[in-house]
């Protein structure tokens, strides 16, 4: 079962499951099992942006004028975002590429992870702009307990899958003794690990990121740190796409047409998967305690952010096919919609990218009735 970078077997890629089938050989996109992944790739490519496009010159001044407790909120939020994108910039590649079996899905995973590296570059761009010594901020990410506590839950499903897959590739299924320890490698168990990983990635992108976006936009809602908010808007547009990628995967898995065993796994793990959502929501609320430990800011405090956590968790649980967990039914931050709206990510189209403007998208199908309104 060793991984091979160019599988020379002859097989029909459109008959393969998403994961744990044959290793992909030819990266071809003329025939696709799931066209949606190809569409996600196209969309993501059309979104391409660079952090340097966004002018941050007023943010430095804005940041210096913030009171200390708001500096703490802003920087902690940024550190958390940096952590999340550090994980997402590499983990989908390391964990999923060795087991993926569809060319379009393989390329989606690579495109997805690549866009996360742009996000990471943005944080450096932002941090370099507002402080003189970026190391102080970056170094704290691995030592700050409030951050590392959450990092554990974010990464443990990925890590378990990566370890399991490497044993599977090296040793195959069965019982093995490694360094005196007995390990059982089974495909069924790996599928369980994969399912939980995809759930936790969906939680990461669809809940954790959105909670951090709320904090970023709360500053801009008061007309401060607006350059930062512009970058976060671009990041939010990408994340909206990514979270749909994992939602599609979860639904395809649960449906069973892709891989019947995966559907059994999804049924078995339903409660555990649901608990991942609930635990993440609780962690995000704890995080809100840490953010606002020295005081709230106008428009956002611990309680409101906590309500938003519950609201967005409910939404995402329903979208991923689970029963909602919380009673909250109303969006406590109605202004989030207009900040998240990706149609107006930029004001001057000649200066930057407009998401709805796709290069090379020409409609060649022109019928005579298209001219019916014309008269000479």
């Amino acid at each position, binding site marked *: 079962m060793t991984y091979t970078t160019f599988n020379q077997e002859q097989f029909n890629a459109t008959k393969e499951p998403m994961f744990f089938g044959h290793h992909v050989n030819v990266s071809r996109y003329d025939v696709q099992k799931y066209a*949606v992944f190809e*569409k*996600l790739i196209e*969309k993501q490519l059309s979104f391409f942006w660079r952090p340097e496009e966004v002018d941050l010159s007023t943010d430095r001044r804005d940041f210096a004028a913030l009171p200390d407790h708001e500096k703490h909120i802003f920087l902690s939020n940024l550190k958390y975002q940096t952590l999340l994108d550090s994980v997402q910039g590499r983990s989908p590649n390391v964990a999923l590429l060795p087991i993926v079996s569809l060319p379009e899905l393989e390329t989606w995973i690579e495109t997805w992870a690549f866009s996360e590296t742009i996000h990471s570059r943005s944080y450096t761009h932002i941090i370099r702009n507002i402080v003189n010594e970026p190391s102080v901020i970056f170094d704290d990410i691995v030592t700050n307990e409030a951050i590392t506590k959450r990092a554990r839950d974010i990464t443990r499903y990925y890590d378990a899958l990566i370890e399991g897959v490497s044993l599977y590739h090296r040793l195959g299924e069965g019982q093995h003794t490694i360094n005196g320890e007995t390990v059982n490698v089974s495909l069924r168990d790996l599928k369980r690990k994969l399912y939980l990983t995809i759930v936790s990635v969906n939680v990461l992108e669809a809940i954790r990121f959105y909670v951090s976006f709320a904090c970023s936009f709360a500053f801009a809602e008061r007309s401060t740190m607006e350059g930062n908010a512009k970058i976060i808007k671009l990041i*939010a*547009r990408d994340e*909206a*796409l990514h*979270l*749909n990628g994992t*939602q*599609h995967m979860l*639904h395809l898995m649960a449906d069973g047409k892709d891989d019947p065993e995966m559907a059994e796994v999804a049924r078995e793990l339903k409660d555990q998967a649901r608990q991942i959502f609930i635990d993440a929501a609780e962690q995000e609320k704890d995080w809100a305690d840490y953010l606002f430990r020295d005081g709230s800011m106008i428009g956002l405090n611990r309680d409101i952010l906590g309500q938003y956590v519950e609201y967005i968790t409910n*939404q995402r649980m*329903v*979208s991923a*096919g689970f029963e909602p967990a919380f009673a909250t*039914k*109303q*969006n406590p931050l*109605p202004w989030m*919609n207009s900040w*998240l*709206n*990706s*149609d107006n990510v930029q004001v001057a189209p000649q200066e930057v990218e407009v*998401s*709805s403007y796709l290069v090379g998208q020409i409609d060649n199908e022109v019928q005579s009735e298209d001219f019916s309104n014309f008269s000479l």
Partner: protein
Amino acid sequence: MAHIIKILEGFSFIPRKEQTVLEALEHQQVEIDFQCREGFCGSCQATLIDGEVSYTTEPIAFIPEGKILTCCCKPESDLVIELAFGCKVKSS
């Protein structure tokens, strides 16, 4: 022909022909979540109880059975829809 949109536990109205369902709801000051407005984020879902819609662009977001993505569809018949968190009208 004009179609009627009925919001369950809310009210009925006749949308303008050129509007998507999302735009029509916003025109009526109904509170509804949205993000991308072009069919890839899935935020603006509603449950379609009765009726038919057509999509102006093919949505990328996953749409569960019985749901519609309001940002990129238009009514093809009279519609009965249900909003996830009830029909709330903006107070302003």
